[in-house]
């Protein structure tokens, strides 16, 4: 699969292109992934801000920007419903597949995992490069679909047929083709991660000494590896439906705008949903696990004490990964499920919430007895905890099929998962950026700007998503072009639309602090050495930024990942790689 002739002689002469663009160095690829992911994230954010205008002020012309978007989208500045649907579908797709996953797995995973396990690189560096480029191609195809005839995909990020098969062809086909590229990218990446973690661990780094972040990536990679292929299969089938007129997902006897649809029929729309959610439920854990990993690292580092239950954390995350393959149909309760199957999926859904409870419990109780430093990464990591708690807890009434009757496809669902992904995952990713930025660049990000970024973001996130839960309880449906204003039952909560939208725009302003900080710190950030956070894991043994090949001497691991404040040690941290740092203690276990 992967070759290893290494021409040591040419090493110094790598040109610009090989070094920064077509690089096979995991750190460069990681940074490429992260930056691309951030750009897509920002793009997805912009799409959403446009939607929020229409939701808050249905039918009102959007000044300036509206006029620029053209008559097929916003004639006279007023958004068309088809454009709204495109924005919705693409916001969801971009955020999930082009923003958070590439940032969390492609970015942090690539950059941090080999460093944390003391490896010189990923096991298959060229596959790694292929994975990035496949992702980029897929992402660009997706985004270009806005310029396709008829516009981008407009059947939601879930692309349910038959709707997705009767909307304009070009956008949906580009969505599907883009998806195939993204899936290929994920498969290449996940094979690479698993092999790397199994094979390239440094001497002494047993599985139970792995930093939790590595565990999270390990489980995540299995989810990607085994859950994505079914969506790939489904994607092929939908492509065939669209391009070769098959009827995998089209039943017989469809009548669209008064005309009988000319297809052979006999297919099943539900089949798509099964295959989609077979991926997409594990996918939501793909969104959250790297985030949990980041938070665990930062919490341990900034409480200056070991995580309180490392082992339960590890077992929970493995169990969570396994269970995530058997809950998918909780997204489909309302499609018409009998008691047996709904009981089955409700039960698995409740079971899967238990490891999440354990993980959160461990993370929270790890604070006990700590000496907490409130720096920017820690603020984001701490905020993650209650935000994920709200998101996770609101999953429970959705997980009971009987309460899901009222809540399904309302803004309650939107509120639920945004609490997990936005103030949850996105905060964790911000925390990770602030935390590992010094390793990647040799400079720290500015603390003041960091705090100016954190507080408004934290407040606005809650102003955005908490009202959505209230709207959902009132019964306001999601994917409403006019924000639901024609419905009487929406009236008691309709005024919240404006509150939410304004909070979303204010949050955009808060991101300016981040963007400025991100670029400014490259030049002006405080220069730091190897280990600015006085941390224990292996990445801090490498120079900042680490050279190609990572470590100056091959690291050896002497102890567990979070040996902070070991009694009898001279410092309050005893790095894994430092033999002399502490009396050789056993890793703490719970």
């Amino acid at each position, binding site marked *: 699969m992967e070759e290893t002739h290494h021409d040591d002689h040419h090493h110094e002469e790598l040109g610009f292109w090989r070094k920064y663009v077509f690089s096979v160095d995991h750190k460069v690829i990681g940074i490429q992934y992260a930056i691309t992911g951030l750009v897509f994230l920002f793009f997805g954010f912009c799409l959403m801000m446009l939607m929020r205008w229409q939701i808050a002020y249905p039918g009102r012309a959007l000044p300036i920007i509206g006029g620029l978007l053209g008559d097929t989208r916003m004639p006279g500045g007023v958004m068309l419903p088809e454009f709204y649907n495109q924005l919705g579908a693409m916001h969801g797709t971009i955020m999930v597949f082009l923003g958070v996953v590439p940032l969390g797995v492609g970015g942090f995973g690539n950059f941090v995992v080999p460093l944390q396990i003391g490896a010189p690189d990923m096991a298959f560096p060229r596959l790694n490069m292929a994975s990035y480029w496949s992702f980029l191609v897929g992402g660009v195809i997706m985004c270009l679909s806005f310029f396709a005839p008829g516009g981008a995909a407009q059947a939601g990020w879930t692309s349910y047929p038959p709707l997705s098969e009767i909307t304009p062809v070009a956008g949906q086909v580009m969505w599907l083709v883009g998806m195939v590229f993204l899936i290929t990218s994920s498969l290449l990446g996940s094979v690479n991660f698993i092999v790397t973690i199994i094979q390239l661990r440094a001497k002494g780094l047993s599985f139970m000494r792995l930093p939790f972040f590595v565990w999270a990536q390990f489980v995540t990679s*299995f989810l990607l590896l085994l859950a994505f292929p079914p969506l790939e299969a489904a994607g092929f089938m939908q492509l065939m439906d669209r391009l070769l007129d098959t009827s995998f997902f089209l039943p017989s006897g469809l009548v669209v705008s008064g005309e009988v649809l000319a297809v052979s029929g006999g297919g099943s729309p*539900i089949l798509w949903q099964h295959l989609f959610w*077979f991926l997409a439920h594990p996918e939501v854990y793909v969104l959250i696990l790297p985030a949990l990993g980041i938070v665990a690292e930062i919490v341990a580092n900034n409480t200056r004490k070991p995580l309180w239950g490392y082992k339960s954390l590890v077992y929970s995350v493995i169990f969570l990964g396994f269970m995530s393959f058997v809950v998918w149909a909780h997204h489909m309760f309302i499609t018409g499920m*009998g008691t047996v199957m709904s009981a089955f999926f409700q039960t698995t859904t409740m079971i899967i919430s238990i490891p999440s409870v354990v993980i959160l419990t461990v993370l929270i109780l790890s604070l006990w007895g700590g000496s907490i430093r409130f720096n920017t990464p820690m603020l984001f990591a701490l905020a993650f905890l209650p935000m994920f708690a709200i998101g996770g807890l609101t999953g429970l009434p959705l997980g009971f099929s009987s309460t899901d009757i009222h809540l399904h496809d309302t803004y309650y669902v939107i509120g639920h998962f945004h609490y997990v992904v936005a103030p949850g995952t996105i905060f964790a990713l911000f925390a990770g950026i602030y935390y590992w930025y010094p390793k990647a660049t040799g400079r720290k990000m500015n603390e003041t700007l960091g705090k100016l970024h954190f507080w408004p973001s934290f407040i606005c996130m809650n102003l955005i998503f908490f009202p959505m839960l209230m709207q959902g309880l009132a019964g306001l449906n999601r994917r409403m072009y006019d924000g639901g204003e024609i419905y009487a039952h929406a009236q008691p909560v309709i005024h919240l639309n404006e509150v939410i939208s304004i909070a979303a725009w204010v949050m955009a302003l808060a991101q300016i602090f981040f963007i400025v900080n991100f670029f400014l710190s490259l030049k002006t950030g405080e220069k730091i050495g190897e280990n600015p956070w006085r941390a224990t894991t292996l990445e801090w043994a490498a120079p900042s930024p680490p050279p190609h090949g990572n470590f100056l001497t091959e690291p050896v691991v002497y102890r567990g990942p979070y040996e902070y404040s070991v009694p009898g040690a001279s410092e309050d941290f005893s790095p894994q790689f430092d033999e002399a740092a502490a009396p050789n203690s056993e890793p703490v276990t719970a």
Partner: protein
Amino acid sequence: MSHEQDIDKHVRTYIKVFGALLVLTVVTVAVSYLHLSTGAAIALALVVATVKGSLVACYFMHLLDERKLILSVLLLTVLFFFFVLIGPWATELNPIVL
């Protein structure tokens, strides 16, 4: 992994497995001309295919003496394979009916 000494033994096994696969192929085709009931035909064909598949996996792909690590990954995969195979079907079999 395999050494020259035991490779001869392996090769003999390969030939035997080859024979068995050919015989089983003939069996499935022959059975399909018997016009069994659909259920029986499916069951029989799947059993034969599973036997053939296992022969390929165990002998040609050397799963019999593969490392535990790989076997456990495959076990996991097989489990999930059955989830995706059976889950949608089971749900289809349990619709809301009057």
